[in-house]
């Protein structure tokens, strides 16, 4: 489903080159629920933005759903984002000027879907996240957990092949976070492929497989001593 081989991402300024990802390799199979963990600045978010075609990469190859996306133009990348990928952001990223229904509708409109089908999908997605009765509410009228559920409904409505979640519970309290996590697990059980970036070892533990990134590379935890330090620090932060 998602395969990156020797992928690199370099940020260049006049004086310095910074490798956000270096010789990065990952292979996520269809139907997998993968948690990507790692300390701050390790390259987790860079990996997710490249995986979601939100930005380009410098070297290597990336196949998404068996399609080489290395050299696609902006319009083709927009189309793939719209049709194959569902995003769940840490900050929910709902559009404050639109109500719940219209927010979920945004990606479907860009797909050029007819109104009756859009409505059916929107209501189906909202029912799935338990917010069908809030369709006419605006984001500001919802709790953080409810907003994240709307964001999940928005991601689900388009039936994406891949769901990318960036710290989906990062802005939520424990109870709301648990609800969102259960929802993601339920979506996974229904067959979705999910890649979730998280700081939270507890959340990561609930995923099917964990991938750990340190200094822009996927590392094998058992063999890399850097992980033990970083993991201990991250775990300490969560407990603290």
């Amino acid at each position, binding site marked *: 489903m998602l395969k990156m081989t020797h992928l690199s991402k370099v940020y260049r300024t006049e004086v310095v080159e910074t490798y956000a990802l270096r010789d990065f390799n990952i292979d996520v199979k269809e139907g997998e629920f993968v948690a990507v963990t790692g300390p701050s600045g390790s390259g987790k978010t860079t990996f997710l933005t490249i995986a979601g075609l939100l930005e380009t990469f410098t070297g290597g190859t990336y196949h998404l759903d068996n399609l080489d996306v290395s050299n696609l133009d902006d319009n083709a990348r927009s189309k793939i984002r719209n049709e194959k990928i569902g995003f769940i952001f840490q900050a929910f990223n709902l559009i404050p000027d639109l109500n719940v229904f*219209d927010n979920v509708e945004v990606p479907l409109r860009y797909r050029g879907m007819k109104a009756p089908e859009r409505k059916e999908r929107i209501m189906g997605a909202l029912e799935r996240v338990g917010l069908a009765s809030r369709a006419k509410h605006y984001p500001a009228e919802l709790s953080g957990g409810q907003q994240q559920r709307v964001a999940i409904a928005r991601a689900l409505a388009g039936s994406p092949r891949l769901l990318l979640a960036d710290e989906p519970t990062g802005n939520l309290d424990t109870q709301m976070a648990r609800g969102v996590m259960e929802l993601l697990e339920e979506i996974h059980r229904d067959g979705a492929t999910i890649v979730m970036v998280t700081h939270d070892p507890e959340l990561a533990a609930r995923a099917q497989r964990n991938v750990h990134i340190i200094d822009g590379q996927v590392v094998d935890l058992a063999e890399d001593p850097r992980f033990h330090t970083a993991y201990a620090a991250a775990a300490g932060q969560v407990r603290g």
Partner: protein
Amino acid sequence: MDIQPILAALRRHKAGTILIALQIALTLAIVCNALFIIHQRLSRMNEPSGVDEANIFVIQNLWGEQYSTQEALERIQEDLAALRQVPGVQDVTPSNQYPFKGGGWDNLITLKPDQRTETTDASYFAGDEHFLGALGEKLIAGRDFRPDEVQSRGLREKMNPSVAIVSKPLADKLYPHGDALGKSFYAMTSAPVTIVGIVDVLQRSDVGTWSVPYAGESMVVPIRMAMPWGGYYIVRTKPGQLTAAMRAAPKALYAENRMRMIDSKDGVLSFAEVRHRAFERDRGMAILMSIICAVLLAITAAGIVGLTSFWVGQRRRQIGVRRALGATHRDILSYFMTENLLISLAGVALGVLLTFGLNLWLVTRFTLSVLPLTYVLGGIVILLLLGQGAVFAPALRASRVPPIEATRPA
């Protein structure tokens, strides 16, 4: 582009939306009416006078002393003889006024002697049998004055002309079926005045807006008028001789009789200068209104650019989210263009009402004509294009917001 979500978003930004729509409405109302006034003024400036403009000049002659009627008539005859001797002069006539002079003589016209309300108003030219020739006017019907018809009159003597040559607009106003020749009218006279000739165009002396309803309505009566203080000579030259004759004419008059004053600046005017001076206020008004229109349009465009730029800045993250969810550059560009179009449409809808309201007020208060629909349609097109043009740059900036913006902290 679906407009429902754009309308939904606009409802959440009422203040900015209403302000811009109101600005567009006011601009439409003012620009449409101003353009109409400008067009009317420019049309008047370009109206044909009916005279041979390229070869005519006018002399304003003031005597050094007040003459009796008889003395004035004699002086006039001497002056006319002197002017006819000037090289290049083709014809000359004395007159109480000339087309586009500004102000001047006019008479209320009736079709019956006891009529209480006038049928119309005509500019009143007094001239001799040389009048038409000196102005280069061509008859389209009837005949010129015969020398024996020309009367000599002092300023305060009763003038009872029995015949007149009229302009076609006056003839048509009095006799709309085109049968004015040989018919008569009353020009504040007890005896009827018979129409013996019709010229196509002879513009009025007055150019004020009050005379717009009587545009082009003029009459010429065969009277050689002796005004005690002086008067006008209308001189027509042979082609190409105007400048030389204009220089020579006052010298010839001074040589004939030094007891007179011909102003060195305003005493001898080419007809081109007469026309230029007649419409100086119209030209000034047209320029002023053009500037007002340009400034208004610029302010409206700046308002649109400002508001859209502000909205683009404010919604940068939102645009990033839309891009992340699949919007292309074109989708974002078209979102902002459509948003502006909707605001502009609301603005012009209100603006149409304001435009006609303002026109109604101008019509009742300043005798302006009713605004033709084409001006409103033209104004709508201008405002919509202005809006689309103004919003394009900020919309293009918005379309370039990368999808990665969705992941940046708020």
